[in-house]
């Protein structure tokens, strides 16, 4: 069904490059979010991780999609630490698996990649919806994406739904008390603040989307 909608290595490389730019541009904003209910480093953590990714990126140009994202994920896991290291490390390491060592995937396969990545975050962090974490972005985004695919929508429509649901999910963290992560101990003092990981997760999904618009 999505056979004509192909995402190749160039697409994914561009996404990763854009993620690295995002990590710099949004570094202080994400860190500021973390300062209100965490430990003021979420943006810095991503920047540290993606700087390392950027440094190594040229070496990975000949890898297939599975191997490529495994390296991206391993690099984040190894360089970042904290909660974001294993979570986003896991996300990217698992992202490539459904690509089955190929050089390109169609949109349907890509959706399975996203699914695999999100599930990695969930299984590593054990967070569920309304715990005030990145899962509040990822899970509804994934559900919306899968529902749209199920309904046979066009890729851009489907991914628009995905991103929009992620955005709503991200904003849904604002009134929550946290059940996971550093904000957990804040109790009611966490209310009124957006979870930094939910914000960065939204940015990540959106970069996949923006690049997709240039393709489809």
């Amino acid at each position, binding site marked *: 069904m999505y056979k004509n909608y192909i995402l190749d290595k160039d697409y994914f490389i561009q996404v990763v490059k854009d993620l690295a730019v995002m990590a710099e541009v949004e570094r202080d904003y994400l860190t500021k979010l973390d300062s209100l209910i965490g*430990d003021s*480093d979420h943006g810095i953590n991503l920047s540290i991780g993606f700087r390392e990714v950027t440094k190594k990126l040229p070496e990975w140009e000949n890898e297939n999609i599975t191997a490529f994202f495994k390296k991206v994920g391993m690099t984040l896991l190894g360089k970042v630490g904290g909660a974001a290291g294993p979570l986003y490390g896991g996300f990217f390491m698992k992202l490539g698996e459904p690509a089955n060592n190929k050089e390109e995937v169609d949109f349907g396969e890509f959706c399975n990649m996203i699914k695999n990545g999100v599930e990695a975050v969930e299984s590593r962090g054990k967070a569920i919806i309304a715990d005030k974490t990145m899962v509040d972005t990822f899970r509804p985004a994934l559900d919306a994406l899968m529902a749209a695919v199920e309904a046979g929508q066009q890729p851009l429509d489907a991914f628009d739904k995905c991103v929009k649901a992620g955005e709503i999910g991200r904003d849904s963290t604002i009134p929550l008390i946290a059940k996971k992560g550093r904000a957990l101990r804040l109790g009611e003092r966490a209310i009124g603040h957006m979870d930094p990981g939910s914000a960065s997760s939204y940015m990540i999904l959106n970069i996949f989307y923006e690049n997709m618009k240039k393709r489809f």
Partner: protein
Amino acid sequence: MRRLINDPYEIVEEMLDGYCRAFGDHVKLLEHDGRVVVSKNAPKKDKVGVIVGGGSGHEPLFLGYVGEGFADAAVIGNINTSPSPEPCYNSVKAVDAGKGCIYLYGNYAGDVMNFDIGAEMAAEEGIRVETVLITDDVISSKNVADRRGIAGDFFVFKAAAAKAEEGSDLDGVVAAAKKANENCATMGVALGAAEHPTTGSEMFEMESGDMEIGMGIHGEPGVRRGKTEPADAVVTEIMDVLVPELKLAKGDEVCVLVNSLGATPMMDLFVAFRKVSMILEEKGVTVHKTFIGTYASTMNMPGTSVTLLKVDDELKKLIDYPTNAPYFIQK
């Protein structure tokens, strides 16, 4: 920013290089992993390996306590960020002497995830690694298991390390660490923010003259912000939490740690200890040993924490055990 640094993205590597240049007779960096500080004595024959760690920015915490009679290795993360799994695993490989290892670190989700992966990797090679999460920050949660680890790290590390030195097996070391952790309670007050080298600015906003009771050592929000009160009033508020927490009663003995979070004049620590001592005296609680200084910091955050460790004969012996690490020497 009022800090003297070079490239903030290199600060941890430069710090570790400087540290090992300074204290090369005590420690070295692992050749194949620049985030693991190992004692020159490790692995020590027939001794359980004691591994501590966490994010940078709490110096002398973690690396300063690696050395003779103290920890065998420290695993070092980025600023305020747990180390990643690889160095956690590498530290085990470096210090295990066949009797297994213990991971000791503050109870933070990030640290747990990363150290756990390290422990799984070690387990795959048949090395047993046990973990004791430190949870001394009484104000951080009602639920003990959710509490953070802060300056109490020092006492838990000390007790476990001494137990390991005495030749105990891993279960014994775990038991000693748990016992120290259970008898340890800390509460802190911040008077301002640390400056993060990467952003070049303060980690959160706080007006001069304000204080925040219960703030974490990564600058995590505490339980109450207000105008800074006199030292004696603040210490009293802290002791009113710590004393019942440890159920201290007449005749009990404690060790006391009055800790600077980084930018507190030592003078103010002595003033604070004076009140701690007066309150304990009044309650008939004896002080076995006092530690005052920068033991667990948040870079240049102004603030102070008070830790009490309720001790019995065993804990006293473990705390008193001779040590020769760069940032804790005891005869």
